[in-house]
């Protein structure tokens, strides 16, 4: 260890020594300091490898499919309860008129089933910065939550979470993918 940290500036050749000895000495002190520092770093990362964290969360898709087990109305394409994704315009958290029916239908179901909880999962497209997209995703989910509350849904039935651009529904670098990723997913939670 001591040896590792010890560096000796060497005047390798007498022919060059006289011209450059000052420089060598100055650099030698720099060298010693920075090698000490990097030893600490290497030690740290070594242990980091052995003690890194592996987390086994639940499945990627969360509980997204649970709603389909609640009743036929959740699988009937003509019933607004079958629609559980609300889409948004670029950099906007304003709910578009097309989705009011969907939000109203889920609100009515939640009012009729007060023990049912949902997660409102806000998401964004990949453009722009990641933490800003987390904030934007939360605003989208909160827009939907406030509409549901205005329709009489109890606040404790609603849980808002934002994944920003971290959980894209569709992979791709074009508007077709982006518009599918700017969304709030209504995720029914197992009772």
């Amino acid at each position, binding site marked *: 260890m001591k040896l590792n940290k010890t560096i*000796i500036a060497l005047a390798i050749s007498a022919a060059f020594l006289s011209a450059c000895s000052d420089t060598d000495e100055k650099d030698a002190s720099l060298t010693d300091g920075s090698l000490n520092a990097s030893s600490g770093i290497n030690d740290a990362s*070594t242990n980091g490898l052995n003690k890194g964290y592996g987390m086994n969360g639940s499945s990627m898709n969360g509980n997204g499919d649970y709603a389909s087990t609640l009743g036929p109305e959740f699988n009937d394409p003509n019933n607004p309860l079958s629609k559980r994704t609300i889409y948004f315009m670029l950099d906007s958290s304003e709910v578009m008129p097309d989705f009011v029916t969907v939000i109203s239908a889920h609100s009515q179901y939640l009012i009729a089933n007060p023990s049912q909880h949902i997660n409102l999962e806000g998401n964004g497209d990949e453009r722009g910065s990641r933490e*800003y997209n987390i*904030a934007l995703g*939360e605003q989208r989910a909160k827009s939907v939550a406030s509409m549901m509350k205005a329709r009489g849904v109890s606040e404790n039935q609603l849980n808002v979470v934002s994944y920003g651009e971290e959980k894209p529904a569709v992979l791709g670098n074009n508007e077709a993918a982006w518009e599918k990723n700017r969304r709030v997913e209504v995720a029914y939670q197992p009772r």
Partner: protein
Amino acid sequence: MSFFNKVLFLLALSISVTNSHAALTIEISEGISSALPVAVVPFSSTAAPVNISAIVNADLERCGYFKMMAEQAMPSKPNTASAVNFNEWQSASQNYLVIGQLADASNGQYNVQFQLFDVYKSGQLLGYRMTSSAADLRKTAHHISDLIFEKLTGKRGVFSGRIAYITTTNPGSKQQSQQLQIADADGFNPQTIASSIEPLMSPSWSPDGKKMAYVSFERKTAAIYVQTLATGERVRVAEFPGINGAPAWSPDGTRLALTLSKDGSPDIFILNLSTHSLTKLTRSFAIDTEPSWSPNGNSIVFTSDRGGKPQIYMVSSQGGEEKRLTFSGSYNARASFSPDGRNLVMVHGNGNDYRIAIMDMSNKSINVLTSGRSDESPSFAPNGSMILYASKKGGTGFLSAVSIDGKIQQKLVFNSGEVREPSWGP
């Protein structure tokens, strides 16, 4: 000594199992036109496990400041000063010459020595002898590169540094998982310090390089963790209702600036890591996020959409008046200071393009440095000369680096998987 070396040896073994080669390679896409010609003669060595001169050559080549001489073109291959004939290196149009030796000193130790010469002055600029364990030889090589770089450019070298980043394996599949990794600056020795099937985000180095703060959704909601790299010990420092994001260490390492939305809209808070006291810094009804400290700790810049679109604002770290800094472009976000505090780097959006831009704090002029369509997460090198950032092309995320004048461009190519959110270690 023996314990340390054993740990390093174990590390080397486990890496060779999972990553026989670098997870990333760095390609230089554009260097400076005035790159200095340098010849690194292969060091003489006795069965060393690491080719030190090749690593030094690659480091110097990659940084964009030097034009490295091909081995085949070298007029001779001296390993001692007395064997150097400066005339032949002058004829070969080389400005600088590096020679060296690597010798087995037994007990698993190696003696490494090198000299840097100014070819036209026929004189030595640097001469060092170092002792290194076998496991430390790569580190020693990067250290030699740092010494040469500093001598020739006057700037601190960053070859010995480390970078953190997030990578996704099996993207889009049920087996998708995310890893927070740390690697050497040249991409070798990648180590996973956290792994989750839920998102990991926003890695932030402590100023001493010993800890990492990051966001993990492993409990299905956002939480901020601080992990000690040496022990793996991990503390969950923030898990409030709503957003827990964008952790940023204060320059003295005692506090984290972060984003919380527990009171409604996302605001900037400061968490004292020893007392656990939480201070609210901003109070707008809009989005306030992505705090970053000035190097002296007096100011914090952040992103806010209080004016309609995201722009960069600045506030004293004690609180007070919040001042808008950016007025050019429809989207400016994720700003951070250069190490000397003179510039801010940020994501600059205009229309559909999001690029990395640098702003001069003295006159607030903005200079766009990159040409991608979706560039993000800029991070300054500790010497302030380069900016590491994330790019996307064809659906895959990769890392790039650009010099602060935009003249040097590097692309960091990973073997597999998507890579994002790079953060250059201190």
